[in-house]
C-alpha cells in the first residue's frame, strides 16, 4: 500500500501536466494565490460560524439561519480550495507526499471533517431546540472550538509544507524518516 502510493506519486510527477505546472513561471503562482484567497473565504466563513457556535458573536442570530445562509458559500469556497490544493499537490507530488506537514495537514482535515459530520448528525439535528440560545449547548460549543482550532492548525501546517526542515533529502532522525515515509528514492531531490 505504502510503496504503491509512493510509486503512484512518482508516476504523477512524471506526467506532462505535472511537469508543466511545476516549471511554469506564472500558473503555479496563480494557483497558489487562488488557494490562499479561497482558503480565506472558506476558513473565514467557517470561523464566523464556529464563533457563533461558541456563543462569541451574532448571539441574536439563530444558528440555523447562519448554517442555511452561509454553509452553501462555504461549500463553494471548499470546492475551489480543494481543487487548487490538489493542483498544488499535483505540481510537486513526491515531495508533498513525503512531507510531514502535508501528512499532518491531511490528518487534521480528516478530523475537521469528522468533527463537522458528528456535529451535523447530532447537535445540528436538534438545532430547533437551541436555535435561539445566545450561547449554544456544550456539545455545539466544543464542536465550534474544535473546528476553529483544527482549521488554524491546518493553515499552519499548510504554510510549513513550503519549508524543508523535515525533507527526506536532508539528514533526519529515525522518527521523522518514519513519519515522512522516507525511502532511498525519496532521499533524492525530486519534485
Amino acid at each position, binding site marked *: 500500500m505504502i510503496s504503491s502510493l509512493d510509486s503512484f506519486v512518482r508516476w504523477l510527477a512524471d506526467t506532462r501536466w505535472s511537469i508543466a505546472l511545476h516549471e511554469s513561471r506564472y500558473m503555479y503562482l496563480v494557483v497558489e494565490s487562488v488557494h490562499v*484567497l479561497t482558503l*480565506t473565504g472558506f*476558513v*473565514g466563513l467557517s*470561523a*464566523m460560524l464556529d464563533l457563533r457556535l461558541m456563543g462569541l*458573536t451574532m448571539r441574536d442570530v439563530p444558528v440555523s439561519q447562519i448554517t442555511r*445562509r452561509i454553509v452553501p458559500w462555504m461549500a463553494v469556497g471548499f470546492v475551489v480550495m480543494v481543487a487548487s490544493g490538489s493542483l498544488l499537490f499535483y505540481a510537486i507530488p513526491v515531495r508533498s507526499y513525503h512531507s510531514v506537514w502535508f501528512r499532518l495537514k491531511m490528518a487534521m482535515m480528516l478530523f475537521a471533517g469528522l468533527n463537522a459530520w458528528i456535529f451535523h448528525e447530532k447537535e445540528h439535528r436538534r438545532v430547533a431546540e437551541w436555535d435561539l440560545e445566545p450561547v449554544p449547548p456544550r456539545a455545539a460549543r466544543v464542536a465550534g472550538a474544535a473546528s476553529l482550532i483544527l482549521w488554524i492548525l491546518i*493553515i499552519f501546517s499548510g*504554510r510549513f509544507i513550503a519549508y524543508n526542515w523535515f525533507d527526506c533529502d536532508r539528514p533526519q532522525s529515525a522518527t521523522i524518516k518514519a513519519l515522512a515515509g522516507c525511502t532511498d528514492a525519496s532521499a533524492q531531490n525530486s519534485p
Partner: protein
Amino acid sequence: MPLSYFQWIENSGIGQAIRSSNWMFPVIEAFHLAGLSLIGGAVLILDMRLFDVGLRQMPVARLARAVQPFLNGSLGLMLTTGTLLFLSEAVKCYYSAAFWMKMVFLALAIIFTYTVQQRVALADQAPGPLLSKLVGVVSIILWAGVGIGGRWIAFQ
C-alpha cells in the same frame, strides 16, 4: 523613501533576530495567514450581506457591529505579524512591486472600511441597494488586492 532607510530597518535588532532564526519567519508567517482567514471571514460576511447574499435577514448595522471586534482583532494581528515580517526583509520589500501594491491597497482598504463602509453600514437608515452593493464590491476588491499582493511578495 530612500533605500538606506529600509536597509537600516532590516539591520535592526528585531529584523536580524527573525532573519537569523530558521523557524521564526515561518511561524510569524503562519500567524499572519491564520489572521488573514479571520479577517477574511469578518470582511466577507459583511460584504456578502451588503451584496444581499448570506445573512440577508439580519439588519446590516447589527451584523456590522457583531463582526467589528473580530475585524479589529484580526487586523491588529495582521499588522503586528506583517510588520515583523517586513522588518526581517525590508530591502527585498523595497524592490518588490507587489509589496508597494499591497501597501497602497492596504491603506485604501483600511481607510475605506473604517470611514465609508462603517458610515454606510452603521447608519440609522439601511443603505439603498445600489450604494450597499457598491460598498460591498469596493471592499472586497480592496481586501483581495491586499491578499494577492501579499502572496506575490514571495515570488520576486
